[in-house]
């Protein structure tokens, strides 16, 4: 099964896991979800739009990452998923 994982559970980072799906499903787990949950989802969605991806499951386990980190980890996870068998 195709899967891509990138990032870490260290502070200021995020661990992102992606799998192919029939539509976009985004799940965010974050200690600061109440404050930044929607912003994290928006960053993920914007990045998927930039990459023209409309069929993917995204799990973001956030440890206080800034937008640029979430975007970078998502891009890497997707690249790794595409390369996985």
């Amino acid at each position, binding site marked *: 099964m195709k899967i891509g994982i990138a*990032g870490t559970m260290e502070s*200021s980072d995020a661990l992102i896991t992606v799998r192919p799906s029939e539509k976009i499903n985004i799940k965010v787990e974050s200690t600061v979800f109440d404050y930044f949950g929607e912003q994290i989802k928006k960053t993920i969605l914007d990045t998927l739009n930039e990459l023209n991806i409309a069929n993917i499951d995204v799990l973001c386990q956030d440890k206080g990452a800034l937008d*640029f980190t979430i975007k970078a980890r998502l891009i*890497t996870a997707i*690249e790794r998923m595409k390369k996985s068998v």
Partner: protein
Amino acid sequence: MLFIPGNNPSMLQNSDVFESDSIIIDLEDAVNVMEKDSARNLVRCYLDNLKEKKAELVIRINGLDTTYYNDDLNQIICDKVDAIMLPKAHVADLKKLDEILTDLENQRKITKKIKIIPIVELAESLLEVEKIVFQNRVDGVLLGAEDFSSDLEVVRTKGGEEIFYARSRIAVSCAAAKIDAIDTPFTDTKDNIGLAKDCEKAISLGMKSKSCIHPNQIEVVNEMFSPSQKTIDWAKRILQAKIDADKKGLGAFSVDGKMVDKPVIERAQKIIKKAEKYHIL
């Protein structure tokens, strides 16, 4: 110059709070081979997001003897990057990197010329350092003492006797090319007294700056490598005395009871220039 691991979001996002003159984002030794892709994407997104730079931005790419350097350069070259640090540098590598950078600058319409800081960390690199310093784009040379000692099969010590010759040869070569000789990091991040002694030794041999591997080292390195207020005051007195002597048509003059000649005046000018560079005038 502070090294920051390229795959560490926390260090990257806080890089502007450190008082170093340069930030070196490391894609080489600080990044595990399995995480090179992740680090490149992180640095790329960090650069895209970067609004204002407080320090010179340098990226240490992987060496030209690896399969990673092309991806490194393709991902990170943009107008926010001031210099590329090249590990295990040789003259041939520098010529090749110059060509790649020229192509990328043209393709991406980057108007400035990105500099190169080669790392001399092999015995064979040291033997061609006199040529390395005069290569296109080269703006400074860093001594990489850990790999250099390993190449020599000698033990790296705090005293640094094993790198005396390398420091001297790099310092002289850089002085000839009028570029900065950058000293190797001091690896014991908890020994700031040892760090200060190491700086003293490097300065006495002609090294002009020093790389750091921990933010705790920046204060000591800045203090050691910046001209002291006493030195700046002396340099100002020399230059003022020169102006006064010129007005009076005097060829020779003295300051503090000592004769001042051309080399002394040039030294004073360099000190003032350095103080200006470090914004401590």
